[in-house]
């Protein structure tokens, strides 16, 4: 019995070379994309100016200014932290209030979608599962289009998306439940509920009578980060701070679930309860992303998958890897979405789809098999 032998589960061991590599490459990609995102745009500035604005000590060394930028004027005032932002230079204003929050939100969206997908892939024991597999996307879609068609106020859109997505998930669970659930029944119920909701959504599209509303609806359904700021950052950051540690804790339970239901049960897991709670965590993560970015596709599907091919099926590694790789993908994709075409922006979901699709095509050609772990 060699005691210096490295335990697979011991604390710290998950920070092995592969994982460090994923983290390093992800951070590098995200940083480069973020710099490009901050430097270019309608307000043109040289890289030097952009960097100077990003590291502006008027923001970084003054907690009140920083608080006013990140928390918003009214919250800062309530907390007694308000500072007048007019002392800041134009480049600093552009970088700190327009371009930087978009990068930050993109990063958080990536974290949530990647974690959500990773969890659903274990629950359904299917590598092709995405955060939207249990109806979240169609539920959120219907709610968003409904809100737009009946002009309930666009400030309600994030709430509508979360409520719609969660409601669809609840319906899927009820449909799938027959003295218990199985991965297959859950996925089938997801397909059925999704089909019905998508029809409703398409039907409601006919009642949209203005081009602007149509554009907003499409941006939501495709997933877009146009116009997000610190307000969206605040919406997304609180649940994310909950989701990430919970997902790391959940990893061991996901590993046991992957041994099959009977084995998990014989090891003392309350399988139904665990599956529901893990689903709820994944839904929380997905809804968080949907609330600020709409239905960005492929991220939750591709990221855990790519991470798995590097680190294996140990879920703690997959989760930690996804926390880095998810933001990298979304930040890069959003940079392409915003700056790729001159004069116009495309929804970020279009770019992630264009990147993710070919990846799966490549995978399909290479392995020919998908559904086995």
């Amino acid at each position, binding site marked *: 019995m060699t005691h210096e032998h490295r*335990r*697979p589960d011991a604390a710290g061991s998950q920070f092995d070379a592969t994982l460090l590599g994923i983290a390093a490459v992800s951070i590098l990609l995200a940083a480069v994309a973020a710099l490009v995102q901050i430097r270019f745009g309608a307000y043109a500035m040289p890289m030097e100016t952009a960097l100077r604005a990003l590291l502006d000590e008027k923001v970084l060394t003054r907690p009140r200014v920083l608080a006013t930028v990140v928390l918003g004027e009214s919250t800062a005032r309530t907390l007694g932290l308000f500072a007048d932002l007019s002392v800041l230079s134009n480049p600093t204003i552009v970088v700190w209030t327009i371009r930087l929050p978009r990068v930050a939100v993109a990063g958080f969206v990536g974290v949530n979608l990647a974690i959500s997908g990773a969890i659903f892939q274990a629950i359904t024991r299917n590598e092709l599962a995405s955060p939207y597999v249990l109806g979240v996307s169609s539920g959120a879609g219907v709610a968003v289009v409904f809100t737009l068609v009946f002009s309930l106020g666009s400030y309600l859109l994030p709430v509508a998306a979360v409520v719609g997505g969660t409601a669809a998930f609840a319906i899927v669970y009820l449909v799938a439940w027959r003295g218990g659930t199985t991965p297959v029944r859950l996925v089938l119920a997801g397909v059925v509920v999704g089909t019905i909701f998508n029809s409703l959504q398409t039907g409601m599209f006919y009642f949209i009578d203005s081009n602007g509303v149509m554009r907003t609806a499409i941006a939501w359904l495709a997933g877009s980060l146009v116009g997000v700021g610190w307000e969206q950052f605040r919406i997304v950051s609180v649940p994310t701070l909950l989701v990430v540690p919970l997902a790391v804790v959940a990893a061991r339970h996901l590993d046991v679930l992957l*041994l*099959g239901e009977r084995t998990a049960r014989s*090891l003392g*897991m*309350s399988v139904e309860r665990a599956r529901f709670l893990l689903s709820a965590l994944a839904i929380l993560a997905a809804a968080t992303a949907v609330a600020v970015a709409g239905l960005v596709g492929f991220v939750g599907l591709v990221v855990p998958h790519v991470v798995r091919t590097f680190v294996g*099926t140990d879920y703690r590694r997959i989760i930690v890897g996804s926390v880095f790789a998810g933001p990298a993908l979304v930040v890069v994709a959003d940079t392409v979405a915003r700056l790729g075409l001159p004069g116009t922006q495309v929804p970020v979901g279009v770019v992630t789809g264009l990147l993710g699709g070919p990846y799966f095509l490549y995978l399909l050609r290479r392995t020919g098999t998908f559904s086995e772990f």
Partner: protein
Amino acid sequence: MSQPTTQDRTDAREPRQHDGRAIHATDLQLGYGEEIVVDVETLVIPRGEVTALVGPNGSGKSTLLKAFSAELAPETGSVLLHGESVNDRPPKELARELGLLDQENTAPADLTVESLVTHGRYPHRGFLEGLDAEDERAIDRALEMAGVESLRDVPVSELSGGQKQLAFIAMVLAQETDVLLLDEPTTYLDLYHQLRVMEVIRTLNRNRDVTVCVVLHDLQQAARFADYLVALDGGDVYDWGPPADVVDDQLLADVFGVDATVSSGDEPTIEPRRALD
């Protein structure tokens, strides 16, 4: 039938060593939906012994194991583990006392043997707890006992069928339960690994006093390794007792539909001749 329930209650309060029964099923009816598959008046798995459940396909062996492990709730009757109903126990608590090895097992391809065995500690760990020294000792003991120590870092997908079965046995050993249920652990294995598996089970029983209940396909194997046989026929107990008492021409004819000569020595030897109509 006169198994008084009051006696069970007193047993439950007594220290366990006074209770000769690890598992005690009474008036047990098991089924899937409308269909009743198992109907047993009383069935005892004696404490500290190796008991084999034998019988032809469809006689209810696996169904009975499902009831013992609380996977299947009985239609009527009860299954007591050390005097307490298995269906009333929280799953984690039950898993610290009762281990179950399924007939067929799957694991993610790149999971190493050691990681797999680590999962055997699941019921012993709290929601946030890591592995403590006791967990590590249990894992080492299990790897050693199942004879897969040298395969520690090998992914499960690279193992032969027999090695894989031993790795999964190591996982349930790491659970360190008083009672172990095994569903046809030798069925798809080559002769060498069949013997290895049965020897591990024997050692576990002798050295650690673990009660074993094993479903076996092979009557000869059951007669050789088990202290007690429970012969099942059509969902009911046909006979119960030490192999020498249970295995005879009559059992082979009545339960298995086989004409055979059984010669008794240290253990009964079965020579099957032909299938009866």
